[in-house]
């Protein structure tokens, strides 16, 4: 039973990334998102959780149900304590990678959600906030 409209999931190991995906799926099902929207949101969460782990030395994800005057949405906030991103625009470009990945994590997940906001301060960490509206 989930009475609170907010939940925090730690991201410290690769099993936590799996847990983050499952939590987002649960919330998206509960909010009756369509299967395609669920899949997009869970995939974006997987990318961003992995980023927080691989590049940000871990952190956490906050899931929150949000609403504006006309619709409901699911908001996910990923916060890490990593080195931060010095050039956010470059990091958002497809193919840009500092790790061994495809460079699709940030740019790709941006395409899978409706709102996407990234705040990063070199040396302090990165916060990525996404919302998918119903």
């Amino acid at each position, binding site marked *: 039973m989930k009475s609170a409209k907010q939940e925090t999931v730690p991201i410290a190991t690769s099993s936590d990334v799996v847990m983050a995906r499952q939590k987002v799926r649960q919330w998206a099902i509960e909010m009756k998102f369509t299967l*395609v929207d669920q*899949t*997009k949101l869970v*995939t974006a969460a997987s*990318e961003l959780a992995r980023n927080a782990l691989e590049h940000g030395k871990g952190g956490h994800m906050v899931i929150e149900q949000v609403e504006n005057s006309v619709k409901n949405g699911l908001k996910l906030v990923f916060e890490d304590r990593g080195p931060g991103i010095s050039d956010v625009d470059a990091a958002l470009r497809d193919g840009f990678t500092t790790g061994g990945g*495809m460079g*699709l994590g940030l740019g790709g997940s941006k*395409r899978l959600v409706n709102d996407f906001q990234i705040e990063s301060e070199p040396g302090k960490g990165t916060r990525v906030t996404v919302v998918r509206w119903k």
Partner: protein
Amino acid sequence: MERIPILRMGQFLLVTIQVDMHDRLAVQLQDDLTEKISECSSRGVLIDISTLEIVDSFIGRMLANIAAMARVLDAETVVVGMQPAVAITLVELGMSLSGVRTALNVETGMELLYELRGDFNSEMGG
């Protein structure tokens, strides 16, 4: 250690991914499959992902890597059973899995493998 089972069927290897894989498990599967192809002189690999609820860039890359490594080892790879919602998401994410052969289900996937490799495998053809 947790592992995804690889079944041998004649000159082909079959894998059904039925768990929500964490990244290390995906890398393990990649390594295991490559070794098994070499050990069994397999001509083809069929990977069933029909129960996977998402394919993100990491798993997409794993599938592409498996196909590329298999090709270098002279084996074909066919990925079957991707759910429509997963396909939509994967393309929007920016991955088209262009180097990976796909089929709708296990049956058509096996047909494709026989088509690609059946001439080497007359005892199992039909």
